[in-house]
């Protein structure tokens, strides 16, 4: 395992992306703790320019934008990370079951996945929010469920390929039961695929979350969210461009970093060829 980690650390782009993501997360977690104001508190004049006291100025209600960015990031990023992880874990488990069981179970699961992916993920999130109670964060499950089908397809394909491989057959020839083959070979070879898909899925979740914030679904004011922050900022785009540019930049930066991280994981986990 050591060499694979080394390979990852040699990947400068991926490691930079990871550092940026960690810094953003740290900022979101730590900044509000040390700031002397909070996201809902009116802490000064309305629409101030950036200053030492308010590094990003204040918004149209006089709230500190920097602290609202940090608190919004907590929401946006945790929604992205959590729903990405939920999708990854459920998707991987369902995919392994589907690929290994085959037959009827497999067709039922795959048709279910087709059904889910035919619903736009945004719609799924909105429906969950309205159906299960608004403002309680249930839309997260909508986003997570929308992220499951690609995982299932990916993992199922991988399972079929691996369980048909010569090394899985060799393992059966040694007397291994299915469970052993799954544990020893399938999971081991699926994980890299799943890891890459997880970052993709997190980036997708982040997009949906900010769109929901932008159209004011799911999270209610005064709780900030990057998409919502961008929405308020865009009305003053001419006079105070930083109000919309900063949240937009944060969103884009996170998505790019997640993709680069995924690529980095893929490169470091890919099997290097023999002699050539």
């Amino acid at each position: 395992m050591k060499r694979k980690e080394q390979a990852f650390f040699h990947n400068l782009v991926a490691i930079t992306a990871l550092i940026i993501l960690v810094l953003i997360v740290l900022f979101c977690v730590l900044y509000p703790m040390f700031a002397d104001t909070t996201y809902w508190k009116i802490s000064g004049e309305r629409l101030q320019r950036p200053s030492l006291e308010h590094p990003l100025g204040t918004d149209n209600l006089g709230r500190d934008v920097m602290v609202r960015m940090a608190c919004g990031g907590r929401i946006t990023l945790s929604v992205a990370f959590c729903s990405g992880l939920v999708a990854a874990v459920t998707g991987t488990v369902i995919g392994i079951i589907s690929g290994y069981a085959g037959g009827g179970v497999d067709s039922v699961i795959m048709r279910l996945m087709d059904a889910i992916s035919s619903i736009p993920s945004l719609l799924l999130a909105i429906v969950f929010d309205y159906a299960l109670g608004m403002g309680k964060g249930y839309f997260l499950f909508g986003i997570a469920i929308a992220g499951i089908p690609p995982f299932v397809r990916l993992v199922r394909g991988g399972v079929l390929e691996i369980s048909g491989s010569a090394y899985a057959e060799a393992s059966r020839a040694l007397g291994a039961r299915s469970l052993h083959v799954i544990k020893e070979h399938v999971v081991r070879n699926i994980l890299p695929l799943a890891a890459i898909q997880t970052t993709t899925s997190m980036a997708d979740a982040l997009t949906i979350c900010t769109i929901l914030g932008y159209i004011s679904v799911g999270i209610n004011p005064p709780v900030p969210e990057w998409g919502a922050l961008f929405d308020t900022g865009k009305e003053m785009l001419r006079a105070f461009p930083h109000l919309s540019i900063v949240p937009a930049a944060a969103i884009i930066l996170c998505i790019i970093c997640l993709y680069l991280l995924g690529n980095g994981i893929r490169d470091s986990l890919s099997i290097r060829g023999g002699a050539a």
Partner: protein
Amino acid sequence: MSELLRVEELIKHFPAKKRGGLSVRAVNDVSFTVNEGETLGLVGESGCGKSTLGRSVLRLVEPDSGRIFYRGTDLMKMRDLRKVREKLQIIFQNPSGSLDPRMLVRDIISEGPRIHHRNVSRQELQELTGRLMREVGLSAEYAECYPSELSGGQQQRVSIARALALDPEFIVCDEVVSALDLSYQSQIINLLEALQTERGLSYLFISHDLAVVRHISRRIAVMYAGRFVEVAEAGELVKHAFHPYTRLLLRSIPIPDPQCGRRGTAAISAGSVGIGQAPQTGCAFADRCKWARASCREEEPPLREIAPGHFAACGLV
């Protein structure tokens, strides 16, 4: 020499891919025995069913019918094969494909013992792995390598060590040297022969290369379209081949000597070719056989003893 494995009337047909198509008779009524410490060679062209036969014998592919006796017990009647799996092993053709690319060599070799003996200590496994690696001629430094970091010959040594880890009595060698370079090929063959002498192993050695099979086997079975068409002692088969297919095979093998008098274009008149399908009745080789008679296309000839220990399935007997 006592009998180790006896296979009787083994049949494995695969259903047709297309609706209305013919099912593929991969293994069609095959019987043979392998004695202790003996190598039975199995030659045939690609698609003749030799690999399916090798897998069916171990029930890695479930045969349709037939009996497989290992030391007197019928494997076909056994529910749980885990106990006999230790004694019956297989080594595959493509060494890189049959090794999990994400496992270290030492974990690959110790997989069998980890499956069967749950309570072996780490140290015991390490010792066993070290001993096996020495036995197959791999230096200890490779234990911490991934298969992709090894050459083809070394990878095949790892597969052999993995098969040996459970101390088997019988190993199916499925085209084990076909993917290897000439210099590795002889290394691996010599290793297999040395292991056979030391451990008293029996092999079913499957290959498309008659010269390799001839070297390692005592007896050779020639397979064509799912059936054994000729079985004989290795020397006898090469010198006094009877079946037209065996003869064609022997003549087709390029001889590594430019002065063998086989440089001409008309050395073998294999005839012109069309798009053909294997006939469903009669001898499967009849269409390619220049001695074929009308009766050959009607009745499938059984395997008959034409000389002591020499069997052939040909209508011309």
